[in-house]
């Protein structure tokens, strides 16, 4: 799976499971900022989704990796088996 596919899958997840507006959400949009406003429960959902879909564990990973779809995708790319 290439980076674009990973990002597109992440975006679809944010829209369908976390209720984020797809028009607002770009790959570099700050996820936990004021605009999107995700919270700590959502971060557990992200960890769960990444674990079960990409087989990459993000448990205990620094918050800088959760900033945007781009940073999550980069972390997945760097840590996938």
């Amino acid at each position: 799976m290439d980076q674009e596919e990973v990002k597109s899958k992440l975006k679809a997840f944010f829209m369908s499971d976390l209720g984020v507006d797809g028009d607002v959400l770009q790959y570099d949009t700050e996820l936990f900022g004021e605009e999107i406003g995700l919270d700590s429960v959502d971060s557990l959902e992200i960890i769960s989704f990444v674990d079960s879909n990409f087989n990459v564990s993000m448990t205990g990973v620094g918050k800088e990796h959760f900033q945007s779809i781009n940073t999550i995708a980069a972390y997945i790319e760097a840590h996938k088996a």
Partner: protein
Amino acid sequence: MMNIYEISEKIAQRPPFQMIERVTELTPNESAVGIKNVSVNEPYFTGHFPGTPIMPGVLIVESCAQLCSLVIEKPAEDLEKNLYVLLKIDGFKFVKPVIPGDQLEISVKKTKEGGVLVGFDCIVKVNGNIHAKGALTFTSIPKESLGK
């Protein structure tokens, strides 16, 4: 199949907050079907509502959550250190009221597991008709972090 004695060995809740009385089907870490009998003698009917007893929706959710907790099987050392708690309630609908005399047949099925989350779809039926449905997500928290 589990009776009330076997259920009590597995869950910590006790009357008047024990909301699953029998388990008729159980596939560990996958799914279960359980029963709750709703009696007019239950204490919450005194106030919910005087003269028109209806089981509170939040307690129907609690019944589903207790059945889910019976599905989640973890190694003893995990359960010693961690507590599995309800994290999220999604899309619950209370389609028809539940009243004294009803027998809730609750079905829960695991829909996701990853990271520290386990998710379930729940359906509550009375006489084969759906009265409530929705999704619940659980997580584990270290017991030592409680209250800090």
